[in-house]
């Protein structure tokens, strides 16, 4: 990954939303530090998962990458080209290569347009006329996402939540993108439907070789979908690693706490009891985040050093290359080793 130019290269990405106040002249009185200095890359055909609790800045990150928001600082490069402050004209060809899938399958489809119109919309805007006509292409796309091509003339309300999300996927695929930013694409769906859409996205990613930035709060879904995972907390990446390293050997206390809080549908005596960490309190406000390490107010290992010095995101001792952790006192023991050793034989 390090030798070739990554598809997407983000460095020092920052977004502060100003807070206006005062009378009669409204001034900026503060800022919500939604995203504060992110560095990460996405290689071609790779899927990067962004996880974190609400308010950690994961959605803002998605909107910055797609340039729906203007970054406050930092750079975004797409295929080596700096698009941080690119104008409409420069962005136009890139926009068709970066697509987005949204969380709410109800709000993200125009109720007055037919499926055909919705899915062919991106082609119309970009004036693309595929061989065989747009209608044919749309039918093809509907088939790829597992919908009946005969439903070309139906309206969104005639579909269930899962089917609507499939329409959203078809629309994102219409321009043969290289990168799809999926913002909580399955969290609004029922469990049984969620698996259908995850499988569809996985098929799309593997067969069409599209890179994904997969934003979700559900750690189990992200584990299933992403090759690399970044954990965010209050606008910063606290840990980023390959899937197996992150879930098997998390070094940041927050990653561990997050993993231990996920309820699993297993009964206790199914195996060794999982590590149990209960964080106290809530996520602090991003308007005035804690000094130093932002997690320190909820961390059980915090010391004065954590309050004074923000830990850099680095490869801490014992980590594999590419596994970066931002912590002064990284965890050292592997997580639930007994269960992990069972995994290889699990694919029966």
């Amino acid at each position: 990954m390090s030798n070739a130019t990554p598809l997407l290269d983000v460095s020092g990405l920052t977004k502060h939303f100003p807070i206006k106040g005062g009378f009669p002249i409204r001034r900026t009185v503060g800022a919500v530090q939604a995203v504060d200095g992110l560095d990460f890359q996405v290689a071609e055909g790779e899927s990067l998962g962004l996880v974190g609790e609400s308010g950690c800045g994961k959605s803002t990150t998605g909107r910055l990458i797609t340039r729906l928001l203007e970054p406050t600082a930092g750079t975004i490069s797409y295929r080596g080209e700096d698009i941080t402050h690119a104008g409409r004209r420069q962005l136009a060809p890139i926009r068709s290569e970066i697509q987005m899938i949204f969380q709410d399958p109800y709000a993200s489809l125009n109720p007055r347009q037919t499926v055909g119109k919705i899915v062919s919309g991106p082609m119309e805007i970009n004036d693309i006329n595929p061989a065989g006509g747009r209608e044919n292409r749309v039918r093809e796309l509907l088939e790829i996402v597992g919908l009946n091509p005969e439903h070309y003339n139906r309206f969104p309300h005639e579909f269930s939540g899962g089917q609507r999300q499939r329409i959203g996927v078809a629309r994102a695929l219409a321009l043969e993108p290289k990168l799809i930013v999926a913002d909580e694409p399955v969290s609004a769906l029922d469990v049984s439907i969620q698996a259908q859409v995850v499988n569809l996205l996985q098929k799309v990613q593997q067969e069409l070789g599209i890179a994904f930035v997969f934003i979700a709060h559900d750690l189990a879904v992200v584990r299933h979908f992403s090759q690399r995972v970044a954990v965010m907390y209050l606008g910063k990446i606290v840990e980023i690693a390959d899937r197996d390293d992150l879930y098997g050997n998390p070094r940041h206390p927050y990653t561990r706490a997050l993993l231990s809080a996920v309820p699993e549908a297993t009964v206790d005596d199914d195996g060794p009891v999982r590590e149990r960490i209960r964080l106290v309190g809530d996520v602090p406000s991003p308007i005035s985040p804690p000094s130093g390490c932002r997690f320190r107010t909820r961390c059980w290992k915090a010391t004065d050093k954590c309050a004074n010095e923000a830990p850099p995101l680095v490869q801490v001792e014992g980590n594999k290359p590419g596994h970066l952790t931002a912590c002064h006192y990284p965890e050292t023991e592997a997580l639930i080793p007994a269960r992990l050793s069972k995994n290889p034989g699990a694919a029966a």
Partner: protein
Amino acid sequence: MTSTDQQPFLSVKDLKVHFSTEDGTVKAVDGLSFDVAKGKTLGIVGESGSGKSVTNLTILGLHDPAHTTIEGEILLDGENLLTSSPRELERLRGNKMSMIFQDALASLSPYHTVGRQIGETYRKHTGASKKESRDRAIEMLRRVGIPQPDMRVDDYPHQFSGGMRQRAMIAMALVCDPELLIADEPTTALDVTVQAQIMDLLKDLQQEFGTAIIFITHDLGVIADIADDVLVMYGGRCVERGTKREVLRSPQHPYTLGLLSSMPSLEGPVDVPLSPIPGSPPSLLNPPSGCRFHPRCAFADKVSGGLCSTAQPALDVVDGRGSACHLTLDQRDEFFADFAVSRHN
């Protein structure tokens, strides 16, 4: 559920809740029976539209009487709630039974302080003075783990964070020491770390007060954490019930099996696709004939004579364990074996 010596605290018998709409009758709940004992937690799992919330609104008497037909029996401590007058129900609600909802912000009044809302219930049911109810509110806030309760009692809901609002709602629900608590997806809108806190809190409070809890959720992981017994609903009916251990480890109904195998996990293989349940949940306006799950069931063709699409399977419950499926037990052992291998290797 094995309350042999005593009668269950809440007993729902053959409950049917039908709504009349312009398009026809919606059979939201269609013949549901269950019991909850004191100090126990019954988890009700199901997807959207399975009738789990309607069941519990009916227990509390919160349905719209003009458009609802209800049959069956709901016995709370021997008293039939379906024949109780609105006045009697009002006496019970908030006092003997209470409820926590999913959306704490929508369930709290934005115009009144948290303390007043908690105290109001207490005053109404005990006739306490303003001072007493305020003290009670502070005590409850302390008990649910709100820091500086004597200050926060005068805050408005918007000054609380999401997790704190949920705690305040729990405080409100528990202010009169109810014997039955109905929690309808109380943690769904919360982050996992806060969800874990709230579930711990509910478990602690249950231990302390011996409350019977009905916990409604779509998340089997949450069930595994909090429930004693589990009831799986599909299309307004119970398809499977048993202890948490029985249902999660050896599911007997294809739907439960499907739910479990469609869940991604933090452990186990990642390179195999998930096994979703095909199709989508049925419309309760025109539910499928026979077994309501048969159009989505992977095993419907294994039953001879097309029984699944013609006859509704009976729910035979022995010692609180049962499932409604036409497959024989031997068939299930055979077909479900793969599941056991992949999940509990």
